């Protein structure tokens, strides 16, 4: 059973990693979501036991471990919030750059950095000339 979980988590993680390496921003976000799900799956699998519900165990026998489920829930909630934030950021980036391709973002950033340094230099030369 542990092996099955490990295999599934590995496949999900791998798929996510493949998507993260994509140039399309939305795919990158989806990749991160998949990786977060792989982590959640691993959290559940970390202490998987068949047993009674721990909140009110009726009768004898073993109780299942509530902690890994609590952790998984917390991780899901945090993952949801972070995904929402990431998507909001992608929307802002797409609005600002007019593109959702990573290469174009990088080029644009470089162009801007270059022009800023150039402007800075020009201003400095101007001031020196004024003195």
């Amino acid at each position: 059973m542990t092996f099955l979980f490990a295999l599934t988590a590995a496949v999900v993680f791998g798929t996510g990693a493949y998507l993260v390496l994509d140039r399309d921003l939305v795919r990158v976000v989806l990749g991160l979501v998949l990786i977060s799900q792989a982590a959640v799956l691993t959290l559940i699998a970390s202490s998987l036991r068949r047993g009674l519900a721990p909140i009110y165990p009726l009768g004898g026998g073993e109780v299942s471990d509530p902690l890994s489920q609590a952790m998984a829930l917390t991780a899901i909630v945090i993952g949801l919030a972070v995904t929402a934030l990431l998507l909001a950021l992608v929307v802002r980036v797409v609005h600002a750059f007019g593109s959702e391709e990573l290469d174009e973002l990088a080029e644009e950033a470089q162009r801007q950095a270059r022009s800023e340094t150039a402007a800075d230099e020009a201003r400095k030369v101007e001031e020196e000339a004024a003195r």
Partner: protein
Amino acid sequence: MTTLAIALVVPWGAGTVLVLLDGRRRVVGWVAVAVLAGNLAALGVLTALVLRNGPISVTTGNWPEGVGITLHADALGVVFALLSSFVVLTALVHEVIEGTRERVFPGLVVLLAAGLTGVFLTGDIFNFYVFFELAMTASYILATYGGTKRELGAALVFMAVNLLGTFIFLLAVAGVYHVTGSLEMQTIAARMDNVDANAAVLIAVGFFAAFGVKLGLFPFHFWLPTVYTGVRPAVAAILSGAVANIGAYGLLRFGGELLPRELEVAGVALVVIGGASILYGGVLAISRRSAGEMLAYSAIGQIGYVLVAIGIGGQVAFAAAILYTAVNALNKTLLFLSAQMRGAVVAGVFALGAFSVAGVPPAAGFVGKLELFRAAAGSPALIALFFVGSALSFVYAFQIYQHDFWRGPRPGTPSAASEQVVVAALALLVLAVGIWPEPLLALSHDAAEALTRGAP
């Protein structure tokens, strides 16, 4: 016990309220400063208590011990909490004086401080993840502060890469729970000895990758220059002076306390990676022509020293790592804040920061380097490495100094006088630590002692 609760709950509660208010109004900014000052004061009291009476533990929600989540303040935790809180406060004061541009900024900074305080004072590894995510989420949004293309692009890279690191951390947490059946740090440390060596190594690698990404160590550094040069100076100061401390703390706590066996095995590898960071950061920083870029690469190099010290291992080296983290955080805050300022004292402040980065005597950096040399005393190769690293940092720091200040003043209008007072005060602190290093030395030794107490 109450101090611990105050230090954590006050910024948390106040931050939640402050994000709803319009942070562009001065009053809101100063309220945030007051909250952070309260947090710093509470941490100061807590530090005094911990140093006098030993570690303080609190189980939250009146649960019996072993069931509830524990908060655990020991010397290592409070030192990092105190340092980070101070850095965040300084950066916030600087930004509030300059004028906040976005409404959520002060609130988010306060929440970030709450998250950092929690990370350093928790005794439970899953809770560590939750606080860590609280601090990181706040810093993701802070990275967009300013809102131009530059910041947005940087924020996207920062968020994507660090989320990846976070999930790797979570996988390692799941691994720890699977093999030890506990999330409480002290129990884990006790049970880790009986764990299968292969599983333990896998977990250790997971933690190392997660914290390496946070720190921007050499093989994980690719995101760092884009982000540190893209974001606004105050945010860069917070990221490099406070948020990066999570990485150093994590390596010390998880490596030194929870997985000491694996840390010993990996010692040589850590020293090699740290050495690569030092050289890579130093050489690339020399090739840069703007203060921001130089500082970003310098951050990669300076973190390398901390990693080398952790790799050497033992109490003396851990103390050196803690001390160097503290000194480096102060240096980076000072330099990032003054990197884009103009005015009468700025050149002097920047020069002092540059001296400190290079490790020249009157400044704090000298003490950090001295401790590193002491930790590496047995090995000529390491001493040579530190020496080369220091020489590189001397060149890059003063090259920028010369470029920015000897060719006449920086272009533009001078910064506000009160802003200059803030960086001048910070510079005086860096100088004071260099001249009278005794308190910080004692603190770092206490912290290292707390870390190695369990180990033989």
